[in-house]
């Protein structure tokens, strides 16, 4: 925080002053950048929330729900930079969509469309929704099982409520407080995100977080002070938005109390719910097309607009392959280390919580609240603010540039996701299994390993895969902790943006996408099959 107040002795700025703040306020387009950041984050969060809720309302308890659940993992696993490229390849003026239209309309040149990097940030919002809505669906699904939804719905319909109205009036008020923190993390993430804003966000002016990165990287070193005060302002912005959300929640609560209890059974059109499902399907389509576009470009040699059919070639893969083994190995080692440690820590914390709760209900409840609250801190504080400080610390310790440091920093961001995804299953674990085991074996450890982990094997595998996916996607933490010496697939991919070579972006994007998918596939395999008597057999509880 000190440099924010003009204190940076090495550069000769050794007096405290407000000059950086003065300069910050004089930045051309500051208001526009801040507004842009606010707009993209609030709109994307609200849209994701609406979409997630709509999808859950419409599909809960129907076969559709299983389909939605199937898509959640891949949607959450895909690294957002690769996704941003894929979607840009579809939407840009010379992208797949425009080529399709050109084939019918007969355009010779790409249209002057502002479909990506548009000044309003629409493409950025769209991408954030694709990324955040599945996360919110996932969190809602985890919370909703704790509510008596089926009973409530039956009760509602017996009283003549339409199901949509039951959801809105009876379930939502219970559900929202449970997903409040995830909503705030979504808000904080979308304000402070840098990598996808670089690829698909507006450029002139950019969002405020991108501007801070540009200040950090500015050769004029006095701008480091500007970056420092900027990152403090970014933190304030996050606090303000979260506060505003809380206030809005409270107001809405007050205002709608009457409506919630007025007994109107409502004529809540199912049109809106099916619209949410349509939007969900549209997002899925876009997601698949994006992946397809990356695949196509990675095999392209020449593909000028408006041709629909490229000249194929393996050259991009051949060229890229040699330089790729090291980043792939680094990503694997770092991802696995961070994920495994994160899961061990999560399990230990959850066990401690359980233990505490058995001894003393209220103290245990309090402890688990504190731990899960603490888990949200790395997700809520803007990465830029946080990492600026971390970099200086690492330098003082002389720890940067080693893969273990990178893994350690990844751990900070992987741990919360693993912990949160394991919390639900741990709470729903039926303790009678362990009691039985304890009676039979007499050993707490054996019971834990053979019974409890056996029962909770699948969520554990899912959490491993999720943690790995989170680690793969980290860009800024890798950059700051590695001093550029440890390259991962993600840092290479973002580095290539500068080169603008779509073929190579396609190759790296695909590899980046493939790694978490492989992790998910392995987790799926491990959770259903096991080695028994030297043969692969289906697990009992799968």
């Amino acid at each position, binding site marked *: 925080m000190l440099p924010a107040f003009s204190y940076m002795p*090495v550069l000769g700025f050794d007096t405290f002053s407000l000059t950086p703040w003065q300069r910050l306020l004089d930045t051309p387009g500051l208001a526009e950048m801040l507004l842009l950041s606010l707009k993209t984050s609030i709109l994307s969060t609200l849209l994701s929330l609406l979409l997630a809720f709509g999808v859950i309302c419409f599909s809960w308890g129907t076969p559709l729900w299983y389909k939605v659940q199937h898509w959640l993992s891949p949607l959450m696993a895909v690294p957002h930079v690769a996704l941003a490229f894929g979607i840009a390849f579809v939407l840009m003026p010379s992208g797949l969509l425009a080529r399709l239209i050109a084939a019918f309309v007969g355009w010779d040149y*790409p249209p002057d469309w502002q479909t990506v990097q548009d000044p309003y940030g629409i493409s950025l919002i769209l991408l954030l929704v694709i990324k955040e809505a599945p996360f919110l669906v996932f969190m809602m699904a985890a919370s909703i099982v704790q509510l008596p939804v089926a009973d409530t719905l039956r009760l509602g319909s017996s009283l003549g409520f339409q199901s949509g109205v039951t959801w809105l009036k009876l379930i939502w008020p219970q559900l929202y407080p449970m997903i409040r923190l995830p909503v705030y993390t979504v808000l904080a993430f979308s304000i402070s995100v840098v990598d996808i804003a670089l690829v698909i966000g507006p*450029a002139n002016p950019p969002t405020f977080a991108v501007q801070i990165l540009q200040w950090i990287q500015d050769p004029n070193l006095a701008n*480091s002070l500007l970056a420092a005060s900027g990152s403090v302002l970014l933190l304030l912005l996050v606090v303000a938005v979260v506060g505003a959300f809380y206030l809005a929640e409270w107001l809405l609560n007050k205002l709608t109390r009457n409506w919630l209890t007025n007994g109107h059974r409502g004529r809540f059109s199912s049109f809106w719910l099916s619209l949410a499902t349509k939007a969900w399907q549209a997002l899925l389509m876009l997601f698949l097309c994006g992946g397809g576009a990356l695949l196509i470009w990675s095999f392209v040699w020449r593909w*000028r607009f408006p041709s629909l059919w490229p000249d194929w070639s393996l050259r991009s893969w051949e060229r890229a392959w040699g330089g790729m083994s090291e980043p792939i190995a680094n990503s694997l080692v770092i991802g696995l280390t961070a994920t495994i440690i994160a899961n061990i820590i999560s399990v230990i914390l959850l066990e401690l919580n359980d233990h505490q709760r058995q001894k003393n209900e209220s103290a245990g409840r309090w402890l688990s609240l504190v731990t899960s609250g603490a888990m949200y801190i790395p997700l809520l504080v803007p990465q830029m603010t946080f990492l600026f400080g971390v970099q200086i610390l690492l330098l003082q310790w002389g720890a940067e540039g080693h893969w273990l440091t990178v893994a350690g920093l990844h751990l900070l961001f992987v741990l919360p996701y693993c912990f949160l995804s394991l919390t639900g299953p741990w709470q729903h674990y039926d303790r009678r299994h362990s009691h039985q085991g304890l009676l039979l074996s007499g050993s707490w450890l054996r019971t834990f390993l053979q019974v409890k982990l056996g029962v909770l094997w699948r969520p554990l595998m899912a959490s491993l895969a999720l943690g790995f996916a989170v680690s793969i996607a980290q860009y800024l933490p890798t950059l700051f902790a590695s001093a*550029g010496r440890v390259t991962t697939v993600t840092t290479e991919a973002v580095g290539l943006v500068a080169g603008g070579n779509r073929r190579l972006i396609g190759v790296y994007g695909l590899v980046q996408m493939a790694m978490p998918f492989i992790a998910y596939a392995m987790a799926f395999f491990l959770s259903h099959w096991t080695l028994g008597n030297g043969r692969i057999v289906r697990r009992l509880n799968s």
Partner: protein
Amino acid sequence: MTTAVMAMALLTHSTAAISQAEAKTTTWQQTVDKAKGQTVYFNAWGGSEQINDYIDWAAEQIDERYGITLEHVKVSDTSSVVSRVLAEKMAGRKDRGTVDLIWINGENFRSMKHNGLLYGPFVRELPSFQGIDPQQNPTTILDFGEPVDGLEAPWGMAQLVFIYDTEIVNKPPANASELLEFARKHKGRVTYPLPPDFIGTTFLKQLLSELTTEPGALLKPVSEADFEAVTSPLWRYLDEIHPLLWRGGETFPANNLALTPMLDDGEILLSMTFNPAYASSAIASGELPKTVKTYVHDKGTLGNTHFLAIPFNSNATEGARVAINFLLSPEAQAHKANPDVWGDPTVLSMSQLNSLERKRFSSLPLGPATLSPEALGKALSEPHSSWVAALEEAWKTRYRQ
């Protein structure tokens, strides 16, 4: 007698000269010995396949000949390396720095020099420096108006060239005013990279050099000039051309390489680059059609030199110097100048080389889209580096929506 004395004197004189040269080679030999086994972290922009492949080649050669491991740390923006070295200084790290060798010039160099972040002077001790003639190439000792003072070694030359597709455009614009006419005729299909991108800012400086009524003022620090008076023709020009540009001049592509696929798709008609051989290598890698060519403006375009420097806290200064010396050698420079490899023009002056070394360069192919040195013409001098920040600030104030 006198002849004998004279002969003696001559002899001693020449022995002295020989021993001086010997001393120089022995100290250099000591450096080479000390460098053996060192690992040099070379922080260089990693956005281009050709350049990355060239650095890989150089690393192999250096490993084979000197036993030095050259690790290419691919960075997306050199200024982030500058800020990392700064952060190290801030944290009080005087040795074991994370950067041993950095590809640099212009503002980044000025910033490092003035903050005491560089090792040296070391350039004149390098045996390969003989090949460089500062008289002929003044930019090898004056980096954007900033004296180099032996703190960075010239590595390659750059000159702004424009790219167009001969199949779509018959006659490219030859100067700023023709460019305005061209943009009027092809509305929405001309653009330039968003300042403060390097090429974007260079394009502004190119326009300024062509349009201003006081070109002399550009060579001095901006603080000594009447900024408004010198730059007002530029802003008038931009005010006029911006509405005619791609996206109505409201937004711009992130950098010059982002222009390449846009040119390929016909989304824009002109692109620009600082590497005269870039277009040829883009044809070779399938990124541009075979019909593209390059051109320069009739009064010349801006040119400069890019350099290699060593941060103050590097632990492998010997290794870094030996690596630099290799990169400046006629062999490495000729390989780099080959358009099939990278196509980066050499910093060496042919007059300083022997005939065998000269032949390495004269036998190079030119590349299908590259201009000959005659067609490229004389490079315009870059404005003093202090103009960059001033222009970028003024541009932001005017054109950030």
